[in-house]
């Protein structure tokens, strides 16, 4: 009997198992998304990257996304190949945070939005010093304007002038040249007019092809565009790249402060500044990719001339409230700490 029962139970067990196997196989698909444990609040981070979700900026924020989870915030990353739309979505509240260039983040924080000011930070060491200072808790109050808080400052690369004629190696020789500028950058248009060049209205999608097909003589951009936009076409046969950083482009992460925990912004700034060197390394690789023969080296005197023209332009843009006076002062102090003998450090009209 015991044997029979055992046998019967065995058959029963086998039958149940056989009947259950298909159901067990289906189980994972029938279960609700058990993996999604909604403990941390979910926030949307809209990221501008010209290459969208496949681009290095977007990918870089995957590491940030995991870090943010440790601070108790689950971020959903959303790629944008149009910076204008990313900024609009952020303004409308469709995004709780956004990664934008300094140019477009200026509308959310005029203080950090002035970091991209022309000629304000002539090298990466000074840029790093500035970022490190601004990311410290002492500057936290300047990171906040209204409900918008700057939660990270990243280098975007120095912007250089790409010219179709390498004999252009002084500011005066830019006079009369057709110079592409973006609508979103009123500062550049004024600067172009100040040096006597002809501003040509353009967009980020067309300005480099305009240079390549000869519609403009000068464009402005980070070294990355040389490869990405095939500028060797526009630089051929006698063009060059002026080795003088006319601006430090930045990427800035701006958050809606009320949508995040109280200390999120400072934690984020601390984290982002730690990754400065890594970000800079990629930028310098782009600069090294430009053949040596294409670089136009400027003598010290010409660099000083460029510096003074850009300084005057900054002062003018400050007076028009395009640039923030306090940030210009911060960057002047950083410059003068590196080069105390510079003429601007004792000038009457110093920033």
């Amino acid at each position, binding site marked *: 009997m015991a044997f029979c029962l055992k046998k019967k139970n065995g058959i029963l067990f086998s039958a149940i198992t056989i009947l259950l196997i298909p159901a067990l196989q289906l189980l994972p698909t029938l279960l609700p998304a058990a993996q999604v444990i909604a403990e*941390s609040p979910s926030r949307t981070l809209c990221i501008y990257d010209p290459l969208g979700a496949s681009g290095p900026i977007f*990918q870089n924020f995957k590491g940030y996304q995991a870090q943010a989870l440790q601070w108790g915030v689950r971020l959903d990353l959303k790629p944008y190949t149009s910076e204008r739309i990313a900024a609009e979505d952020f303004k409308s509240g469709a995004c709780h945070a956004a990664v934008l260039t300094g140019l477009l983040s200026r509308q959310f924080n005029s203080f950090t939005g002035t970091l991209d000011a022309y000629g304000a930070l002539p090298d990466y060491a000074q840029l790093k010093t500035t970022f490190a200072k601004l990311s410290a808790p002492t500057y936290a109050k300047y990171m906040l304007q209204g409900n918008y808080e700057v939660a990270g400052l990243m280098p975007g690369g120095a912007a250089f002038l790409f010219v179709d004629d390498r004999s252009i190696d002084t500011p005066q020789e830019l006079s009369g040249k057709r110079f592409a500028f973006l609508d979103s950058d009123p500062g550049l248009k004024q600067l172009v007019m100040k040096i006597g060049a002809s501003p040509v209205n353009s967009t980020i999608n067309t300005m480099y092809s305009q240079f390549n097909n000869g519609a403009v003589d000068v464009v402005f951009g980070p070294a990355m565009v040389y490869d990405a936009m095939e500028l060797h076409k526009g630089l051929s046969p006698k063009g060059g790249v002026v080795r003088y950083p006319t601006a430090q482009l930045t990427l800035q992460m701006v958050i809606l402060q009320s949508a995040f925990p109280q200390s999120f912004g400072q934690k984020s700034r601390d984290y982002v500044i730690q990754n400065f060197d890594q970000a800079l390394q990629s930028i310098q690789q782009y600069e090294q990719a430009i053949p040596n023969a294409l670089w136009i080296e400027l003598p010290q005197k010409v660099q000083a001339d460029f510096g003074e023209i850009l300084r005057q332009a900054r002062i003018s843009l400050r007076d028009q409230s395009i640039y923030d006076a306090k940030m210009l002062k911060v960057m002047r102090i950083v410059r003068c700490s590196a080069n105390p003998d510079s003429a601007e450090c004792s000038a009457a009209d110093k920033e």
Partner: protein
Amino acid sequence: MKYFGDATLRMASKFFGVTVVLLCVTACQGIYKGTGNGIQRYSATQIVPFVSSGTDVSQACQMATAMTPVLFSFERVGTQLNDSRILMSMLSGHCASQQAWNAQLAYTSAMNQQQPAAAQDARIVEKRALIVAAQRYWSGYQAKRSWFSQISPSSSAVYKNPGYKNPEVINARAAHQGINPRCPKRFDSSAQMRWLVGMVDGLLAVMSDSLAERSANIPLSAIGEIAEDAQCLRDDQWWGMASAVPAMVAALKNGDPTPYLPLLRKASGIGYVQGVRLAAVLEANIYVTQGNEPALKEAIRRFVGNAEHPFKVNAEFALFDAAATEHVQAMSDQLWMRAKGHRTPVGQLGRFWDDKTTSVGDDVDLSEVL
């Protein structure tokens, strides 16, 4: 022996020894080179066609990964294997891509489960694999450049000094003469296949490096060259890739891909009809880049096809279609993992968790009976 002193004997023995060594070295070099040349011929005439017609991508990529050091060691003795390297690099790169996809899924899964340390770790694994993939694919693209420079001086002219040669000027001159100088002079279908695979190697190298935050430092300028290389191929012969590659590059450069989507979709259709769906991967990738999930789902559905227009693989190039399928499956797996916490269920590629299901009999109206 008494006529020879010890010194003479020692000299003779040394001379004999050196001669033997020299003979051995020369003979071995000859043997190695002969073997290398044999392998080169075997690789070109047997391995490449055999592997191309298989469907087991994992097996092919593991074979390529394992064989690469052995095969290409023959380059040290003077055997040129660039033509084999074009395909082998694509295959070994695919193995690294598989690792990256798995790590990417582990990242998404860890994020879903709110495990930040595990997510960080998975991202590191993913980046490492992407760097390896980018370097392997890039080696394939460089092999393509070298091989075509060897066999066709016309294409090498463009590559010798890319920084200073203006392709537009060269192309304008060539158009005037009725030839495209970028394209090799000797360009039979076997050469065209290598050209195409080399192009795809280059494209995958740039894309993998971009996903690795440019850690492998692959020159971005390559994508412009690759788009121009596509001019040498015909859509109706090479699965829509002649249109798809430049359209994808233009879409990436333009920021807004909308103007190029009809062309990409048409190219995907050509690939579908011809039995190799590589163009569809490029189209789907644009939707990934845009973060456009509905369009990506639709592209995956079209990739799989339907009963009315069933897909029929081109048996000669089945491997490329199988690799394309793995790329699309990786995209589908990501969608599933994000939404449901697991990969695409077996046999359900082209279907999604939120698809409306129709029950049997839904289309039969029996209300008048009730």
